[in-house]
């Protein structure tokens, strides 16, 4: 069998998702026993080598990022957006709410932006989350090696939370984004009593107005940066 060429690239991000991939050390090497995978991690793409699968982590925050991204797209058959930054622009978007203060601290920062990579290139598959769920990555990776696209999770964090029989945080008066957030994280935050802050983006047909109504009825106040309309910039079909 020909080698399957896999590249893992990195734009502007904390590289936490890449650490999650490294955390798969116990099982990831098993794939190499049967499949020949040639992997470039964190390499700049230099010459336009062809890749079967390219994972791109991070958002586009500069013209350099944009050029790099387009080069990767041109050289890859399948491009996967890896993590919240690549899928939705990431937590960097928080700066959009208090630009003045940030400008004072870091002059000239108004020219910074944080765009999901889908704004510049076609994306074949998304693995959301901050950081990604390593098992979800592994599932997707295995499927792609078999030339199959796994179905994008279309269930909520709530539905995974109730399977763990957790008590509801909204019920306790906490602004938890579980009902509108795409699941797949096994509800890790609510399981440890932290509210879901929506790092996996909006679920299909998320009812934002309904959740705001629920919060209002329960007297739960929310911060502007938590509003999903801002965060889930990318419209999905």
């Amino acid at each position, binding site marked *: 069998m020909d080698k399957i060429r896999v590249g893992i690239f990195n734009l502007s991000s904390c590289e936490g998702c890449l650490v999650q991939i490294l955390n798969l050390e116990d*099982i*990831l090497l*098993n*794939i190499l*026993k*049967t*499949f020949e995978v040639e992997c470039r991690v964190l390499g700049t793409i230099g010459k336009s080598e062809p890749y079967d699968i390219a994972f791109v982590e991070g958002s586009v925050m500069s013209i350099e990022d944009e050029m790099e991204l387009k080069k990767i797209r041109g050289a890859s058959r399948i491009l996967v957006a890896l993590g919240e930054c690549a899928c939705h622009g990431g937590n960097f978007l928080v700066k959009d709410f208090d630009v003045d203060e940030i400008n004072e601290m870091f002059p000239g920062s108004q020219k910074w932006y944080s765009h999901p990579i889908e704004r510049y290139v076609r994306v074949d598959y998304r693995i959301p989350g901050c950081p990604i769920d390593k098992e979800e990555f*592994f*599932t997707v990776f*295995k*499927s792609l*090696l*078999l030339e199959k696209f*796994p*179905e994008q999770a*279309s*269930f*909520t964090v*709530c*539905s995974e939370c*109730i*399977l763990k*029989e*957790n*008590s*509801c945080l*909204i*019920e306790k008066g906490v602004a938890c984004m*579980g*009902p*509108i957030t795409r699941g797949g994280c096994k509800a890790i935050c609510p399981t440890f009593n932290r509210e879901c802050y929506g790092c996996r983006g909006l*679920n*299909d*047909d*998320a*009812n934002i*107005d*309904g*959740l705001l*109504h*629920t919060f*209002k*009825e329960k007297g739960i106040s929310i911060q502007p940066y938590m509003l999903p309309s801002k965060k889930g910039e990318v419209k999905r079909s």
Partner: protein
Amino acid sequence: MERFLTIDKGLMDNFLERVMEYYQLIAPVRTEKGVLFEYISGKEEVDLTYSGHTILPPKKFFFPPVEEMFVYEYEDSGNIRLYDLLDEVSKGKRVIVGVKPCDINGLLVLDKVFTGEYNDPYYAARRKNTLVIGLTCNRPMEYCFCAYLNTGPFIKRGFDILLSDLGDKYIVEVGSEDGWKLIKFNLDLFSEARRDDVEEREKLLMKVEEDIRSKGLPYFETIEGALREKFLDEMWDEYGKKCLACGKCNFTCPTCRCFTITDEPNPDLKSGKRVRTWDSCHFLSFTRVASGEVFRRDRPSRFKQRIYHKFVYSINEIGSISCVGCGRCVEVCPAKINIMDVIKEVTFGVKPLSAKIGED
């Protein structure tokens, strides 16, 4: 088989301990999250005093949220070999104790689905190797409405043994041959029930039934007809706006049984397993077909599907409605949508009091 015995509460522990020698015991356990059904390792964990219901119904032990069905393997010759995991399922005998009448009825509904026209061997095997010890209610909770659906507090079948709490002792009704065997070998712990005990239980359950019947719901026979007339009503849009489509109502329902099936390859990519997981009719992906088309795209139609399946379509499918009145869906709903309000609105035209979305 109608046979009544009693057992002192102090001896219940001994009975469960003896049961645990031969069976894996599943029982309600009180945790900081609430009361849950769990496998028991020591008899002191068992809590038979709980009111209302556990967070997830006992269906999780018969139709698990994630279930591996079989393993596949590509041989070097190119053939595919399958290993059924059914044998694993059939191993070991279990006893589940403390199942409330609504949940027993939930299992009876699932029986009709999984062992009726289509036989599901995985469900059937689990059901076959598990004895059910029921427990009647002494105090209904805010959201209980079983009395309107004939699924409680009285129960006639579906249990091997039925316990009722009479203060210092349990009155024990034997419901099956298997249940009798369980008692027969431990007869030293039980005594024959007196007529007063049986009457006291009757009175207790009558009281519970009265309490529940103060909720002003219609009787279930009328719900189907009323729903059929309201299919195109605007009320569904209102509920669709409120519903967050999170799926918690489905997952906590003792009768919801929809699932999806996926193949999960192993790291060697030459073998893997087929897995069945719970699915919810509130998710957009639920009606997605191979072409990518989604049939129930708007939220009101998905909300409606749950109600109509329970009270209308189910009658054609299995001959009974698929709601047992446990009230779990009301309790877990983050948007506090109350299925009792829906039923009232459908049959009497009474709107719930809470504000509509957009009016506040």
